[in-house]
């Protein structure tokens, strides 16, 4: 099956299992709600009875932005510091939810919350081990290869004659890093896919086997991954253009903007499902066929 055909069937699968995206969105929404709650209450305490609070509603204004920065200069550092631990917890939560997504994609049944959570629990430890191994992968790529690449870019920009060179180099470096990231992410996605489809339990063995699997069909797999990446970019552009159309003040526009934000987060969640569903399709198609 060709790459586009696999993408097509993965796309249909992601459409059929759209409920998975809702679960992901819900987890994201609730988690963010908890994180933002202290900030909300802090603002409420200090600004709800101030006329400055009303200015917050009228849009951005450097006077009150300055006030916020001044008022919360110590709290902000604490807030960002505090975000680190929940973020790590969120990562682990995602490892947990990935099991549910892949588990439900790999079977043809309808999606329901109980089965989703059951699969999440079933694959959690396997996926957690893959997650730990993937950290090594990311470190290898970004620390060692990344440093080498940065040195190359530095050599290039050191003799730059104008800012154009440094700009081009910076964007190119970012692009190369994103491509590297996509490779590592894709690699460990397939490790997870193989663990689910083949009901494997050994994360290291699956990782090693994946070198063989992807080594033979790397560019087709990567091409598919990048196509889904383009869908993600397309959705982001769609969100951006839509958000531009929404007026910046007023109660109804505020509600519309809030809903639009959530639609975008939901779309991002759906692309996660799309990544996994296309990868499942690819794996099933290529696993036993000759490269």
């Amino acid at each position, binding site marked *: 099956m060709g790459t586009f055909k696999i993408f097509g069937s993965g796309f249909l699968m992601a459409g059929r299992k759209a409920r998975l995206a809702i679960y992901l969105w819900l987890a*994201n929404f609730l988690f*963010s709600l908890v994180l933002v709650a202290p900030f*909300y209450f802090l603002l409420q305490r200090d600004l709800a009875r101030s006329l400055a609070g009303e200015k917050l509603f009228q849009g951005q*204004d450097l006077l009150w932005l300055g*006030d916020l920065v001044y008022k919360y200069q110590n709290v902000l550092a604490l807030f960002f510091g505090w975000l680190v631990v929940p973020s790590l917890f*969120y990562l682990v939560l995602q490892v947990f939810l990935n099991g549910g997504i892949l588990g439900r994609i790999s079977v043809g049944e309808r999606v329901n919350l109980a089965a989703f959570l059951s699969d999440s629990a079933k694959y959690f430890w396997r996926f957690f081990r893959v997650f730990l191994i993937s950290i090594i992968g990311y470190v290898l790529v970004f620390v060692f290869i990344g440093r080498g690449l940065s040195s190359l870019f530095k050599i290039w920009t050191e003799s730059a*004659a*104008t800012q154009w060179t440094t*700009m081009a180099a910076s964007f190119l470096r970012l692009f190369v890093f994103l491509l590297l990231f996509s490779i590592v992410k894709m690699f460990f996605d397939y490790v997870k896919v193989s663990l689910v489809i083949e009901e494997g339990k050994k994360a290291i063995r699956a990782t090693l086997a994946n070198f063989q699997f992807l080594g033979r069909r790397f560019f087709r797999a990567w091409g598919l991954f990048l196509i889904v990446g383009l869908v993600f970019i397309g959705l982001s552009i769609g969100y951006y253009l839509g958000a531009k159309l929404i007026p910046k003040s007023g109660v109804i526009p505020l509600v519309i903007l809030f809903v639009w934000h959530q639609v975008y*987060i939901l779309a991002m969640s759906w692309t996660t499902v799309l990544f996994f569903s296309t990868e499942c399709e690819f794996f099933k198609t290529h696993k036993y066929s000759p490269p």
Partner: protein
Amino acid sequence: MEKAPNRACLILSLSLLAILFCLPFLEATQITPASGKKNFTRYEIWVELDDAAKMLKGKEDIFWFNHTREEIPDIRLHLYWNGFKNEKSTLLQESREESLLGIQVEDRHWSWIDLKKANLADGPDLLPTLEFINQDEPLHPGDQTVARLVFPQPLLPGEEVHLKLEFEAKIPRGLLRSGFYKDSYFIAQWFPKPGVYEEGKGWNCYEYHLSSEFFADFADFIVHITVPARFVVGASGKQVSAVSDREGKKVTYTFQQGSIHDFAWTAAPDFIKLERDFIADREVSEEEYREVAKKLSLPLEEVRLPDVRMILLIKPEHKSQVERHFKALRAAIKYYGLWYGPYPYETVTMVDPPFRTASGGMEYPTLFTAGTGVLRDKKVLSPESVIVHEFGHGYWYGLAANNEFEEAWLDEGINTYSTGKVLAKAYGPGMFSTSLFGLPLSWFFDFPFYYDREFDRIGAIMIAEIDPITAFSWRFYKRVSYGLNVYFRASTCLHTLERLLGEDQMVRILQTFQMRFRFKHPRTQDFIDVVNEMTARDMSWFFEELFFTTLNFDYGIASLKSSEKKEFFRGMFDADGKKEEITKKDLAGMKKKREKAEGQKIYTTEVKVRRFGEARVRGEAAVKLRVFFEDGSEEVRFWDGQKRWEKFVLEKPAKAVSAEIDPDFIWLIDSNIANNSLKIKPCRRGIFRAAAKVMFWLQCGLSSLRGLS
């Protein structure tokens, strides 16, 4: 390469023409005081750029006059580039302490300036007497940025000394305002320059500090700059000649300017040099002249502006921004001229700083560096902001030449304030922006529009309690404290002063200060004196509270209550020798009865205002309190603001809605405007909006994290 012979012929022909053209001027380039003043410090410098070795070789004649009643035994010279000579320099030691905001010199890129000869014109060699002076506290022994030469006999009052120096200097590789990158140069603080001799105090000649700019005497300059023929050159003052050597390989440019206190120049082969005129009659209407003359109470002729030759040296990659550069410069010449006095020089040279020469956004007399990027959003006032600011330094530093080592706010603060005024008048608010690798994000996202004063205020309130604005430049707690205090806090205080005194009064103050201290070295007290004189009141308290101390200014409303006036009371009361109890039920009846009789309820509103900060309003100033009521009416009270808090009680037939202190926002320096108002009923829409935005970005961040799982 094949075009070289033609090019050489062309250069030779042009050079001959140039020599012929310049002959009448060559006579004039003999040391003659361009300022027309006698006994004025004069420099004539011959400098040659060695492009291959990245060196300058120069000869310098200094005519220095003893204006004091003291005998002066020596002369002190700034040798600024020795700040980059080794890590024992004050500059690099301060940099090490600063870490992030300091500068670092890479191996093999040390630079320096050496005095090769130092003679008096009549013969005696002063070089054996040379010693480096380290007096700035804290001491940095080993610094060589201030040198002392001892005269054979002390210089008597009214005597002039003619020093003949020869020097060699290694050009920095783009360090702190000066330097080269590839074959582009920006050359500043490059020649041996005497400090300022102050009667009764001696030499005012500080070392090169990380957080400080400069101070020197006004002088007349003639500078001959020899560079390879392919270079385009710009410099302080007016170019009077360009003479090519016989081979056509080098060209010597001569620049002349009177009554300036520094001289900078730049050279690069790919500069595009454009010249235009600021034609005052075209830029300023009669109506505008009349308005300004009225505002300043000056005759119409005194506010008229002269024409100015504007010279732009811009890099090819920024060519598309030529119009933006000239438009900003025209606005600056116009409004600084109208408000603070006409620009007195014939030329102003605006340099788009050569890439990686670390020379952007810096001022020198009659020349300044702007700074831009290859991509710029028109909604964002960059490079306009830096152009207006650096030109403005021609007034605040260039003309009213304060000591930037000791009182940097006098130029940076006043000029930051002035920049904001000019930008607001010429452009209105600009968009706040940030960029990703040089790509303006304002092309994609809606950032807030703002006036400079709003931006300045953020810096001002952050730094209130660390250093006074008037601290010596290198003695601030950190470099960031220096920057935020002398630029932003000083500017915000001046905006506050303007709001207190009125815009017209503020223009009169600054105009008087500028014109009175042109070609002089004003001090902070001079500024205060002008304020007091112009306002006919003692405003010293304003400076005591906000400039000389580290007091935070924050007045606010602590509480607001509004309830029905309590006229009837429960309990046991003595009436006609008997005890009579008034119960809740009785109260209700009494209230109803009274309402029926009077037809309305009376409410008591109690507002408690507080002075949260240490700084106080004094003099004739007071803090205004305005209370708004449900029936649309409002009440105003004034508080002298001396005690820590005060209670105001108002009785009205309407409930209060909100109370606001300083409702006209006079006190821009107030560090917390959120507590300036209080409403009876909370309103959470704005808070929900802000929290929703934060939540969305958190959601996006968390979604991105998912990629790692």
